[in-house]
C-alpha cells in the first residue's frame, strides 16, 4: 500500500503553511495564467516575469488542497532565476515524475523531488500538476512573444 506519509512530508506542510512568493503583482512585465480543477475546486494563479531569458520572478496565489498550494509555492521558489529553457525542462520532467511516466532523472528537480510519492496517488496527480501547468503556460506565452 502506498503511504500517506510519503506525500504529507514536512517540506510540503511547510510550504502549505508558509507559502513563498504568494500574492500577484499584476504589474507590467508579468504574464498571468489562471487554472482551475473544476471537480475539486482547486484554483491557481501563476504570474511570471522574464528578463534577459531568465525567469526573474514568479508569483502565485489561489486556493486548494495542501498538495496543490505547496506545489505552487515550491515551483515558484525552485524555478525563480532559472533560464526559460531550463525551467520548461524541469516542469516537463516534474510533470512526468508525478504522473508516473518515464522522466530524465539526471535533471535536478531540487525541492520539487518531494512530490515523487504523488505517483502512487493517481487521484492527486492533478493537484500536484496544476501550478506547474499554469507556469508552463505563462512561460510558453512569453517565449512566443519574445
Amino acid at each position: 500500500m502506498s503511504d500517506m506519509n510519503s506525500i504529507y512530508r514536512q517540506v510540503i506542510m511547510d510550504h502549505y503553511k508558509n507559502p513563498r512568493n504568494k500574492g500577484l503583482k499584476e504589474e507590467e512585465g508579468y504574464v498571468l495564467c489562471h487554472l482551475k480543477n473544476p471537480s475539486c475546486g482547486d484554483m491557481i494563479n501563476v504570474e511570471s516575469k522574464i528578463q534577459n531569458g531568465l525567469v526573474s520572478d514568479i508569483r502565485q496565489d489561489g486556493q486548494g488542497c495542501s498538495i496543490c498550494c505547496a506545489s505552487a509555492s515550491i515551483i515558484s521558489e525552485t524555478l525563480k532565476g532559472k533560464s526559460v529553457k531550463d525551467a520548461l525542462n524541469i516542469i516537463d520532467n516534474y510533470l512526468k515524475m508525478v504522473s508516473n511516466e518515464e522522466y530524465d532523472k539526471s535533471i535536478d528537480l531540487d525541492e520539487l523531488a518531494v512530490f515523487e510519492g504523488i505517483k502512487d496517488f493517481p487521484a492527486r496527480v492533478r493537484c500536484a500538476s496544476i501550478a506547474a501547468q499554469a507556469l508552463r503556460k505563462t512561460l510558453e506565452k512569453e517565449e512566443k512573444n519574445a
Partner: protein
Amino acid sequence: MNYKQYFPVFQNRKDMVYLDSAASSLKPKKVSDAITDYYNFYSGNIERGVYPISFEATAIVEKVREKIALFINASKEEVIFTRGCTDSLNTVALSLKENLKKGDEIITTELEHHSSFLPWLKASEEKGAVIKFIPLTEEGKITVDNFKKVLSDKTKIVAISHVSNVMGYLTPVKEIIALSHIKGAIVSVDGAQAAPHMKIDVKDLDADFYSFSFHKMCGPTGLGVLYGKKELLNSMEPVELGGEMNDEVSKDNVTYKNIPYKFEAGTMPIAEIFGAGAAIDFLNEVGFGYIEKRDKELSGYAKKLLRSIPEIVIYNDYEESPIIAFNIKGIHSHDAVSFYSENNVCLRAGLHCAEPLHKWLNITASLRASFYFYNDESDVEKFIFVTKKAIAFFKEVGYLE
C-alpha cells in the same frame, strides 16, 4: 438483512466501505446478469428486425418500459429512454427553449446540480430569458414561501431538483408544481437523487417532466429516463434526429413517430435497458419502506457520531437525509479524501457538480458521505474510526494545529 451479498464488488473488495452512492450506486448481480443475458441470448437490434432475437428483445425492452411506468405511476408512452439524467434534462431544455421569448423568466436554485441548471443558463442566454434563483433559507433549503417570491406572470419554466445532491434536502416540489401551474409555467424536476430513495409518483406530484438515472439506483450506467406528460411530449420537437424515430422520410420532409419513439433516435442502449428492468425488480423487492428506514438510521447514526468530534463541521445537520455534507475543519477535502481512500473508505470530495451551492456556503469544497440500503452500521463505525485516524494523522504531520 445483509444486502451486500447481492453485490459482487464486495466479493473482490471485502473491506471496502462504500459511501458514495449519491455519485453512483453499486450494482447487484441480478443487474449485471440481465445485461449479459442480452448479449448472450439476443444481441440483435430492437424495433427493426423481423427475426426472433430482435422481436424477443423488443418485447423485453417494452416490458421494462412498462415496469418503469408502473414504478413512477406514468403511462408507458410517457417513459423515454435517454443516456442518463443529464441527457433527459438537456432534452427538456433543448426542446422547450424554442418557446422562450425575451424577458421570460426561468426559476431555478443554487442547490441544483450543474446538469439541471446549465441547460437553462444556455437557453436563457440564447433567448434573452432571465434566470431567477429561489432564495435559500439560512439552512440552505428551498421553501414554498421563498418560491412565491420569485414566481411571477413571466415565469415560463421551473427547473428544480427533488433532492439536493449535496445537502440531501427534499424540495417541496408538489406545492411548487401546483403554484407554477397556476401561472402556466412548466416544471422540470431533476429526480436523480430522489428516485433511488423514495417512491416517485409523477401523477401525484403533477410533474410536467421528471428525470432520473439508473446508475444511481442499482442499475446500469448510460441509461436514464425522461418522463414527460403525454400532451407536452406530443407538442414538442425532438432534439435528436435519426433512425427509428421517424415515420416517413422524403427528400424534403419528415414525419415523426408517436411518443416515446419520437425522442429515441438511433439504437437504444438495449443491454442497459435489460439491466434497468432487473434494477427495478430488485428495488421493488427491497422496498422503499426499507430503503427510507435504512437511509435514516445509517445517516442518523453517522451524524450522531460525527457531532461528537469537535474537528468536524456538518453543513446539513438538520434532517435525516442519506447525504452528509461535511469537512474536517482546517483540512481541504481533497487532502482528507485521500486519507479515507487509503483506509478503504470511499467518499466524494470537491464540488459535486454543484459549484453555485459551494459559493453560497462560502466554502471551496466539501466532503460527502452518502448512504444506501446496502450499507450497514459497521460501515458507519469504520467511517468514524477513519475520520478520527485522519484527524490524528493530519495533526501529526503538522497540517492541523
